[in-house]
């Protein structure tokens, strides 16, 4: 019998609908993988095997009655622990939200359940989605299932912030998982673990019920093994939501049906400013290979310029902490979450003690930076300047898209690194996002596709960035790369 955990979203959906196996069999197989890997990988904060079985039973019952199954019918998934799930602990990997059981369900997770998906558990992440290596979680590091081929057993980073999601999908603990992307938190972990992930246009997926980090940047998206699976899951996640003031009031396209790897008549832009000094030679070679693949798919390749690229990262590290300092002001020890009330403390002391005990070092660092750049006397020099630079970055993309349909770039400047290698130096960690942040600042759809393996045996990803609302163009270019890269590598099981 087929190992059901080797199947992706489309195969599970079709197999369940066609009666080749039941949804319960699928859920049981993934539940077993989740349990077996938990001690070694720490991908989940909470596992919910019963929820997965209940959803599967509901799907099997619908099929028995001859009813149509949803887009995700019978597919068990992992839910990043940034999405509020009714009655199931939702922590954003923080101490301050430990034990928080929402009374409501996030719009995106509700849509997935309505589409027939089931929940295997809540996935670990960087605390409040702040980090690029999953080393800032209060609930411990996630360990990548990948290892270098040097015979050493160095624990590697699964990327961040969606590190539980990337580790779980690549280790076959779930066929797909939700991610959220503020500056690269879907694409960078996908690249580090050899899986596929797409951040749609800002506003496609509702932010309602997602623990907020930087609201003008936060966007949910799917992480799965291939482009088709991402297209299916994104269709289930996206859609207008009146409860999110920046939700796009547009119909959700049929991305899966629209998939086509034929790029004749399409132009692919190669941004000259992304060729940076000291770029990893293997990443540069893979990028060239990607250009050749897209030409082979019929596309014309043109050089473009995004002149403000080098300013994207510093602008991001003003804007995102500024918004975070404002969003995280809600954690006050009064309404939900942790309270630390020292003897004789007044209300102000309680706030300060609660937040000191409840936030990790990186979260505090970003709140302080954000508070500083928004404070009287510095607001214009930092925050307003950064928002002006953001306008210029967005205009760069608008001009570039007059000459091309999609942009091809690397996802990350390097392959995955060892845990502890960058965690002492915030700046070197921030530089990981150099290729992913510009599209976030401009709100554009962007995906990472696994495209090769480096000499250490670790996966590398290529990034496709598209015009606003053109997820289809992004997915199609991603599919063209996927078909030519023929990426089938997976981590050797050691856990």
């Amino acid at each position, binding site marked *: 019998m087929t190992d059901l955990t080797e199947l992706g979203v489309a195969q599970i959906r079709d197999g369940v609908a066609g009666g080749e196996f039941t949804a319960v069999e699928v859920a049981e197989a993934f539940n077993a993988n989740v349990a077996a890997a938990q001690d070694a990988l720490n991908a989940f904060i909470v596992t919910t095997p019963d929820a997965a079985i209940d959803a599967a039973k509901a799907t099997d019952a619908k099929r028995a009655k001859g009813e149509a199954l949803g887009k995700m019918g019978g597919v068990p998934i992992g839910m990043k622990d940034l999405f509020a799930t009714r009655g199931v602990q939702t922590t954003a990997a923080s101490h301050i939200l430990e034990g928080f*059981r929402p009374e409501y369900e996030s719009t995106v997770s509700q849509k997935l359940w309505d589409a027939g998906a089931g929940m295997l558990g809540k996935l670990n992440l960087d605390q409040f989605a702040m980090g690029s290596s999953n080393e800032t979680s209060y609930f411990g590091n996630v360990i990548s299932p990948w290892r270098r081929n040097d015979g050493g057993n160095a624990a590697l980073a699964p990327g961040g912030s969606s590190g539980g999601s990337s580790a779980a999908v690549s280790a076959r603990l779930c066929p797909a998982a939700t991610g959220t992307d503020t500056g690269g938190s879907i694409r960078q972990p996908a690249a580090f673990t050899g899986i596929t992930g797409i951040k749609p246009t800002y*506003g496609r997926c509702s932010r309602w019920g997602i623990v907020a980090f930087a609201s003008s940047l936060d966007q949910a998206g799917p992480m799965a093994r291939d482009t088709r699976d991402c297209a299916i899951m994104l269709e289930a996640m996206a859609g207008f939501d009146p409860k999110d003031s920046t939700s796009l009031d547009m119909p959700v396209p049929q991305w899966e049906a629209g998939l086509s790897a034929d790029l004749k008549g399409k132009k692919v832009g190669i941004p000259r400013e992304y060729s940076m000094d000291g770029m990893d030679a293997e990443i540069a070679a893979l990028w060239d290979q990607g250009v050749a693949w897209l030409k082979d798919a019929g596309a014309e390749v043109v050089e473009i310029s995004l002149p403000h690229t080098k300013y994207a990262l510093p602008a991001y590290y003003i804007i995102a902490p500024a918004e975070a300092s404002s969003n995280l002001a809600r954690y006050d020890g009064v309404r*939900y979450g942790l*309270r630390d009330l020292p003897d004789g403390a007044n209300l102000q002391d309680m706030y300060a003690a609660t*937040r000191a005990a409840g936030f990790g070092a990186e979260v505090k660092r970003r709140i*302080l*930076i954000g508070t500083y750049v928004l404070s009287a006397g510095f607001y214009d020099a930092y925050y307003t300047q950064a*928002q002006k630079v953001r*306008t210029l970055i*967005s205009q760069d993309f608008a001009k570039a898209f007059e000459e091309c349909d999609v942009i091809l770039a690397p996802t990350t400047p390097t392959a995955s690194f060892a845990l502890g290698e960058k965690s002492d130096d915030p700046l070197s960690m921030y530089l990981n996002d150099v290729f992913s942040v510009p599209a976030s600042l401009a709100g554009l759809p962007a995906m990472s596709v696994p495209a090769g393996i480096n000499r250490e045996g670790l996966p590398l990803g290529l990034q496709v960035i598209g015009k606003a609302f053109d997820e289809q163009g992004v997915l199609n270019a991603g599919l063209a790369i996927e078909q030519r890269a023929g990426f089938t590598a997976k981590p050797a099981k050691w856990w």
Partner: protein
Amino acid sequence: MSVDTATVAKIASLARIKVSEQELEAMVPELNGILAWVEQLGEVDVTGVEPMTAVIPNKLRLRDDVIDADPLTGGNRRDAVLANAPAAEHGFFGVPKVIE
């Protein structure tokens, strides 16, 4: 621009995060490293450029002026609202005494 210990202490107080002397000492160089790096934004000529307010052009919507249009986020949900409070008392959020 760079920050000193007193400035970081002031920011931490504004952000309502208690920090020890030792933490302050460690944070000063870290924050200065980050601030020195973002300083490069000052090089960019932004003459006549408007700061971004909406990344994707979007109209702000108004909901219908109806009470409890969405029962989940409408009123009469006291128990649900208090369900996760660390100190819910008599149907209210409990806090330390604020009036002498």
